[in-house]
C-alpha cells in the first residue's frame, strides 16, 4: 500500500560479527480466501538476536508467527530454520525442532497444576515409552523423578516453585504470563516467539518483564522474536525491529531509526502526526 519501503541495511547485521542465521523467511505469503494477510514478508534472524515485530493492529504480525509455528498453512514462500524449510511440517514437529512460542491471550492448561504445565513440555523427551508408563517400571520411576526435579528446578528459576501445586487458572495474571514463558522455555527451544507478552501488565510488571527477557536470553542462550505494542518494551528490549502494515514490511531498523521513521509514524498515527514529527525534528536540528 505504501510506496516507500525503507530498508536500513545497518540494522540487519548487528555488531558486525558473523553469527549463524537461525531463521530465514523468504517471500512469505498468506491468503485467507481473497484476503492477503501477509505479502512478501522477508526476515532474517541471527543467533542471539532480540528482534521485534511491530505494527498497527491487523498488520499481520500474529499471522506471521502462526505461519512460523505451523498453525497456519503457508500460501507461498519459505521459512528456513537451521537449514530446514518449515513449510508443511506439523506444528508439534516444529516445536520439537527447537521453536517455542507463547500466545497473545495466555493459553495455559487451565485445570492443571503449575508443575504439570511445565512437565508437559518435557513429554517429547520424557525418556520412557508407553509400556513403561502403564507398568510403572523402574525406568519410568527413574525418568519421572528426574523429569519432575528438572521441572521444579526450572520453576525456581522463575520464582514459581512455591506455586507448583496451584491450578494454573488461579494464578494472578502476571504469574500466568511468567508461567507461560517458563513453559515455553522448558521445551528447550533455540528460538522463542513471544506474542505481546506485556499485554495487560502494569508499568512495574512491564519492567520486570523486560528484565526477564534479557535474563532468559543470557541464561538459555536464546534467540527471541517479539511482537509487542508497548513501545517502551520494544525500544528497551529489541535490537532490531521490523515494522509491518497491511501485511507488508514497511520499515526495518534499530529502535532509534524506527522511532524517527516517518513511514512508521504515519502507519501508527496517520499523516498529520507524521508531518508534525517531521517539522519537530527539523526544528530540533535547527536549534542544535
Amino acid at each position: 500500500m505504501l510506496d516507500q519501503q525503507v530498508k536500513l541495511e545497518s540494522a540487519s547485521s548487528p555488531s558486525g560479527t558473523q553469527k549463524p542465521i537461525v531463521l530465514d523467511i523468504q517471500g512469505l505469503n498468506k491468503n485467507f480466501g481473497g484476503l492477503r494477510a501477509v505479502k512478501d514478508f522477508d526476515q532474517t534472524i541471527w543467533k542471539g538476536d532480540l528482534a521485534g515485530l511491530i505494527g498497527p493492529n491487523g498488520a499481520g504480525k500474529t499471522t506471521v508467527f502462526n505461519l512460523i509455528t505451523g498453525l497456519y498453512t503457508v500460501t507461498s514462500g519459505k521459512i528456513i530454520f537451521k537449514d530446514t524449510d518449515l513449510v508443511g511440517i506439523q506444528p508439534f514437529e516444529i516445536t520439537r525442532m527447537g521453536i517455542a512460542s507463547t500466545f497473545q491471550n495466555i493459553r495455559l492448561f487451565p485445570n492443571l497444576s503449575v508443575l504439570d504445565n511445565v512437565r508437559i513440555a518435557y513429554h517429547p523427551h520424557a525418556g520412557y515409552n508407553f509400556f513403561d508408563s502403564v507398568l510403572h517400571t523402574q525406568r519410568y520411576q527413574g525418568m519421572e523423578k528426574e523429569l519432575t526435579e528438572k521441572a521444579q528446578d526450572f520453576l525456581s528459576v522463575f520464582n514459581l516453585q512455591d506455586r507448583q501445586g496451584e491450578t494454573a487458572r488461579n494464578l494472578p495474571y502476571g504469574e500466568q504470563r511468567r508461567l507461560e514463558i517458563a513453559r515455553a522455555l522448558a521445551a528447550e527451544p533455540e528460538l522463542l516467539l513471544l506474542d505481546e507478552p506485556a499485554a495487560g501488565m502494569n508499568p512495574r510488571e512491564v519492567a520486570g518483564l523486560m528484565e526477564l527477557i534479557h535474563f532468559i536470553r543470557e541464561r538459555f542462550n536464546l534467540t527471541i522474536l517479539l511482537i509487542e505494542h508497548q513501545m517502551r518494551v520494544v525500544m528497551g528490549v529489541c535490537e532490531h525491529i521490523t515494522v509491518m502494515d497491511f501485511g507488508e514490511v514497511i520499515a526495518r531498523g534499530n529502535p532509534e531509526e524506527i522511532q524517527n521513521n516517518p513511514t512508521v509514524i504515519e502507519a501508527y498515527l496517520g499523516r498529520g502526526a507524521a508531518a508534525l514529527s517531521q517539522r519537530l525534528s527539523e526544528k530540533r536540528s535547527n536549534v542544535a
Partner: protein
Amino acid sequence: MDKSSKSTTSSLYERAIRERWIGKGLLALISILAVGYISFNAKDSPSLFVQQLVNGLQIGFVYALIALGYTMVYGIVKLINFAHGDVFMVGAFVSFYAIDRYELHTWPSKVIPGIPPLLSLLIGIITTILLTMAVCAILAIAIERFAYKPLRDAPRISALITAIGVSFFLEYFGALQFVFTPNFITYKGPFTTTTWYINNGIHRLEAGTAPPDNSVLFSNILIIIIVVSLLLLAILQFIVRRTKIGKAMRATAFDKPTARLMGINVDSIISVTFAIGAALAGAGGILYATAYHQVVFFMGIMPGLKAFISAVLGGIGSIPGALVGALILCQAEVLSAGYISTPMRDAVAFTILILVLLVRPTGIFGEPEREKA
C-alpha cells in the same frame, strides 16, 4: 524446487498424494459397487425402481422440513438439538388429537353452514396445520428457555446431554399409560386417499381393485406433501432473505456478540429460530402421520437423526442444503430398503454420514475450510 529436473514418475506420485487419488479411488469403488448393485436389481423391474424413487420423494420432503430445524438451530447456537425429532413426534400427535379425536378440521362446515365441502376441508386442514405448528413452536420456545438457555455458556457437552435428556423425557413421558399409550396408534386422517397409478398414462385407482403389473403408484398425499413443503420452504426462504428478522437471524448466526452490539435482541432471535424450526417439524409431523397412518411415541428418534444427517450432507447451516440433503439421503435409504433389506437402510444412512464427514465435512453447500494446519 526445480521442476524440470524431476522425472515424470515422481511428480505423478506427488500429484497422486496432493489430489488424494487413493481416497478418491476408494470412494469411486464404493459408488460403482452401489450403483452396479442397484442397476442390476433395477434392471429386472424398472417400475419397482421408479416406485422406490417416488416413495423416497415423499419421505424426503418430510425429512427436509425436520432437517431445516436442525440446520437453523445449529447455525445459530451450535447445538445439535436431539429433542428436535421429538418435536416432530409431538406435531404428529397434536394433529392426531385434533383430527382423529376432535375432528377439528371440520370446523368451517360447522361454523359456516352451506360452505362447499372442499373449501371447508381446505380451510379446516390449513388451520389445523397452523395450530399444530403453533403448539410445536411454543413447546420449542419453552424447551429453549428452560433447558438450553441456562446452559448457553456452559461447556457444549452439558447442553448436549440436556438435549438428550429432554428428548428422552418427551418420548417416555408420552409413553406413560395415562398420557398416551406406548403402542402404535392408527390415524385415520382428514380425508380419504386417492391413488393413481402410472401405466400407459395416469389412471385413477378404484378402491378395492388392484393395479396392473408394472405400474407406479402415487397418491394425493404425495402431491400434498410436496406442495406444502415447497410452500413452507418458500416462506422460510422469504423470511430469512427478505425480512428484518431474517437478517437478524443471519447476523446472530454469523457473530453473536457483534449482533448484540448492533442492537439485536439475541435471546429473542434464538427463540424465534427454535420456534420456526419446530413449526416446520410439526408440519412435517402432520404430513408424515397423514401419509403413513400411524403415530407412536418413539417415531421421532430415527427421522430426527436421519434429518440431522441430511442437514450435514447438505451443509449444516444452509437452507437449500437441508432440502437437497434430505432428498438425496431418502433416495439412498429407500433404495437400500428396497434392494438390500429394511434394517440396512439405517446402516446405509449412517455410513453416508461418515463418508460425508470424511470427504467434505461442510456438506454440499458448505464452504470448505482448509486454512489452518
